[in-house]
């Protein structure tokens, strides 16, 4: 018990004194996962919306593929990104393996299907006649898509949150393609793994608390979105 109590006390000390190492790791985490989520948002929302609004042969297969992608195991992503970025790999010339850029790539690959799947569901969940109503108001096709995306903005935001939540707490891919290099590619999850294995529970607990707080805020926003009333 002492171990835990002591660890928690030290953790709060580190948090309240804004320990530079903890702060640095946190900011880098937010930066990498934030960028990865932003990329996944651009790709995920545009493709998700397109699939939701178009009829084409094999559409069901594409939808099932996207839904499968939502559960992509991060270690598998890490494995393939590593292979592709390896010195002799197809993208080895980029020389970005073991850099934050590689982590952004891996995390964007993990988050994109999540954002895409939720966007697809969000647009499809809008009332069937809403598209017709928007067109009947004189909208061009582009105006219609924009209005639909605005209408689905809350579930879309939920998608963004879910994507961000997925990558900020992900450890497998980040450690494989980032290498957990101190002050360079060390993020909350990879640092927690390392400090725990070294027995530095105080730092590990402090990092864990930050992760928990992030998870809490994400879920707070999600719950708020889910509990809203629907328009008539």
């Amino acid at each position, binding site marked *: 018990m002492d171990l835990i109590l002591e660890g928690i006390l030290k953790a709060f000390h580190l948090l309240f004194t804004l320990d530079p190492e903890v702060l640095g790791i946190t900011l880098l985490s937010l930066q990498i996962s934030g960028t990865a989520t932003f990329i996944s948002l651009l790709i995920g929302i545009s493709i998700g919306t397109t699939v939701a609004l178009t009829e084409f042969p094999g559409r069901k297969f594409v939808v099932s593929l996207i839904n499968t992608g939502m559960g992509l195991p991060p270690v598998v992503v890490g494995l393939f990104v590593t292979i592709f970025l390896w010195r002799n790999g197809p993208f080895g010339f980029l020389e970005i393996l073991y850099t934050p850029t590689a982590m952004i790539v891996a995390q964007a690959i993990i988050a994109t299907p999540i954002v895409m799947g939720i966007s697809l569901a969000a647009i499809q969940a809008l*009332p069937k*006649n*809403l598209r*017709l*109503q928007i*067109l*009947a*108001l*004189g*909208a*061009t*096709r582009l*105006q219609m898509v924009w*209005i639909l995306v*605005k*209408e689905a*903005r*809350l579930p879309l935001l939920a998608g963004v949150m879910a994507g961000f939540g997925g990558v900020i707490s992900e450890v497998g891919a980040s450690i494989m393609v980032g290498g957990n290099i101190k002050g360079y590619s060390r993020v909350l999850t990879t640092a927690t793994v390392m400090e725990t294995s070294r027995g530095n529970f105080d730092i590990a607990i402090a990092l864990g608390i930050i992760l928990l707080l992030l998870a809490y805020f994400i879920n707070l926003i999600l719950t708020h979105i889910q509990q*809203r*009333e*629907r*328009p*008539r």
Partner: protein
Amino acid sequence: MNGPRSILVAKDVQVRKGGTLVLDVPSLVIEEGEILSLIGPNGAGKSTLLQTLASLNRLSAGGIFFRGEKISSDHRLFQYRRKLAMVFQEPLLFDTTVFENVASGLKIRGREKPEVAKRVQENLERFGIPHLLNRSARKISGGEAQRVALARALATQPEVLFLDEPFAALDHPSRESLIDDLEQILHQTKMTTIFATHDLLEALRLSDRIAVMNRGRIVQIGPPEEVMNHPADEFVASFVGVETILRGKVIRQGGGTFVASISGREIEALGGAQLSEEVVLGIRPENVILSPSPAKEISSARNVFPGRIVKITSLGPLQKIQLDCGFPLAAFVTHHSLENLSLTEGKEMVASFKATAIHVVRRGEK
């Protein structure tokens, strides 16, 4: 070939969905300023016809003509749709304020802010909801939401208004008051309106013409009294019921009754009405009494008309007698009475019915 006033014409229109023909309209001409009701059971093709006329559906054959010009199915369709407006059964409001909702059609058209603000205000006042201006569309009642949807449609000053069962989801009081307001607005603006409903009373009240639809086809189209009194086939007859429907103008009123002139005959009915107001009178055949002419005895029936029997139809235990009294009138008699009075087609009879037996639909001043 079309009158100078026709605004929208459908020619040889066919719509197929998954191989099946869901709409088949060889010809439909909509006159400028008229209110046309599409009635029929669910699945009759009313919504499909509305959506097709508004070019929200792909045609499998035929064409739609707006003011004589064919609507081509290219990417500039939105320019045609900007002359129209449509209100559905669900209000389909956007998740924003009432102001933004009513403004949306105008903003889509890129109108200037002062104009948008002015039109939004006008239309909210028109529908009696200016106090909702800054409210969230999520936090208003169903009746209010449908008023916002109508205000949004009218804010763009459409040349044709399409209404797809806009009252069907409302409770009785909100429905009645909304129909009252809409009726007044449509008569004031003289806006061409095509109105789909499965409620015959709504259709009778609002429309200049009624089109009865069944299985994707228009089976009969004409003025309400014609469709009601001379159903084209059994389907129309069963859908519109057996009431005699007469349309006329109030020429006298007072003492809780009024007298309406119908094809030169005067019919007295119970109820309040304004002078020169247009009314629709419904008379159920079981309330019409036939007696051999001439009837001298005094009765409490205020309406007594001599007429000639034009048709006798057997409806199971009852016989439906159609008379020509200067206006059409239907009566039910039993088989027994038919024999006792020796009723035959061409025979002169006297028909009478009480002022209280008339079902009155007021249509307001025209």
